[in-house]
């Protein structure tokens, strides 16, 4: 009976797929998530990165937005291509316009949340963006030899004190780092340093090392916000993608 009353009492919440109170977060005295509390830890003592996070879409537009001149220098071909892409004449060639994966690190700044599920052996990331998933192996394996080139790469991680250091290689060189059009090549190596600053904020320090496109490696820092109660929903991009025929440029082929 009491249970039934509880059900009735909380039925608006239970009826929602999102908005369900999460458990693994410190709370303030009034019961709200304490987003500035120390980061929770997993049973093995590591910081627990688990949660639903939202990145900053400022970097979707320009991943280098916070850099000063000279901190990121493109090779001449990459700079020329970026300048063309900025004008919009290649808009139909942008992978996102074709519902193709954004790649790393762009997926961190799309306007869709992602969920981190952490275990001792691997960290899984479920991205609402394009319904993509990512496996970051912590078991010591390495990418060796020729891999099948991919949009999202192959990720391995290791803990450096309280920071999860993730290395990703094996890209296909087709992704744009942002809507501005900063290019990538198959030589791209992304290092992400995930550090949960506190319960509500996840810092990702990202180093782009792509010697075929950039003069030297460069680093940016993005901060993700925890979304307590949010869930990763379905994003079936191809459902009704009607923009493509109206965008300048050639559509991507061999999709």
């Amino acid at each position, binding site marked *: 009976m009491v249970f039934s009353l509880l059900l009735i009492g909380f039925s*608006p*919440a239970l009826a*929602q797929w*999102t*908005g369900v109170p999460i458990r693994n977060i410190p709370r303030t005295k009034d019961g709200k998530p304490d987003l500035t509390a120390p980061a929770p830890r997993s049973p093995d003592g590591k910081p627990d990165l688990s949660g639903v996070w*939202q990145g*900053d*879409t400022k970097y*979707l*537009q320009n991943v280098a937005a916070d850099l000063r001149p000279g901190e990121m220098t493109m090779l001449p071909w990459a700079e020329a291509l970026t300048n063309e892409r900025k004008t*919009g*004449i290649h*808009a139909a060639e*942008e992978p*996102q*316009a074709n*519902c193709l994966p954004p790649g790393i690190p762009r997926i961190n700044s*799309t*306007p*869709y*949340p992602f969920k981190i599920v952490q275990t001792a052996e691997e960290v899984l990331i479920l991205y*609402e*963006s394009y319904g993509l998933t990512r496996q970051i192996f912590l078991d010591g394996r390495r990418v060796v030899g020729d891999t099948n080139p991919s949009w999202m790469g192959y990720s391995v991680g290791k803990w450096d004190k309280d920071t999860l250091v993730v290395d990703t290689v094996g890209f296909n060189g087709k992704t744009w780092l942002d*809507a501005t059009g900063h290019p990538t090549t198959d030589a791209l190596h992304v290092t992400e340093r995930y550090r949960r600053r506190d319960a509500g904020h996840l810092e990702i320090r990202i180093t782009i090392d792509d010697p075929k496109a950039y003069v030297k490696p460069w680093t940016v820092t993005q901060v993700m*916000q*925890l*979304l*307590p*109660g*949010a869930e990763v*929903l*379905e*994003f*079936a*991009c*191809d*459902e*009704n*993608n*009607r*923009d493509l025929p*109206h*965008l*300048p440029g050639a559509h991507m082929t061999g999709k």
Partner: protein
Amino acid sequence: MKCGLFTWLAALMLAPAPLMLAHHSFAAEYGSKPITLRGTIVRFVWMNPHTRIYLDVTDANGAVTKWECEGSAPGGLLSNGWSRGSLKPGDRVTIEGFPARDRPNICKVRAVKLANGRRLIMG
């Protein structure tokens, strides 16, 4: 679909939703000069990668123009206080948006003001 108080509270509790809720760059497709449309909802298509609002806009002479306006993806809108029932055929609304560069009567939605005065941000 009902949108109870909890939905709105939940939406308010979430972190500030990004205004640019796009799956790709809009700059090549839409201009930057804002337009305002007052019209009647014909259809609200709740699909990925962008929702679409079809509405009839009637001018001072009674002539009706059919508009198609593109919005954000359903997932992002749910977090922003929207639901697939937010707009129904026959609803009188005011749309703030940006017109397409190459086609008439097409726009990208920034916000929708409902008849009850509520303003829903789209992106």
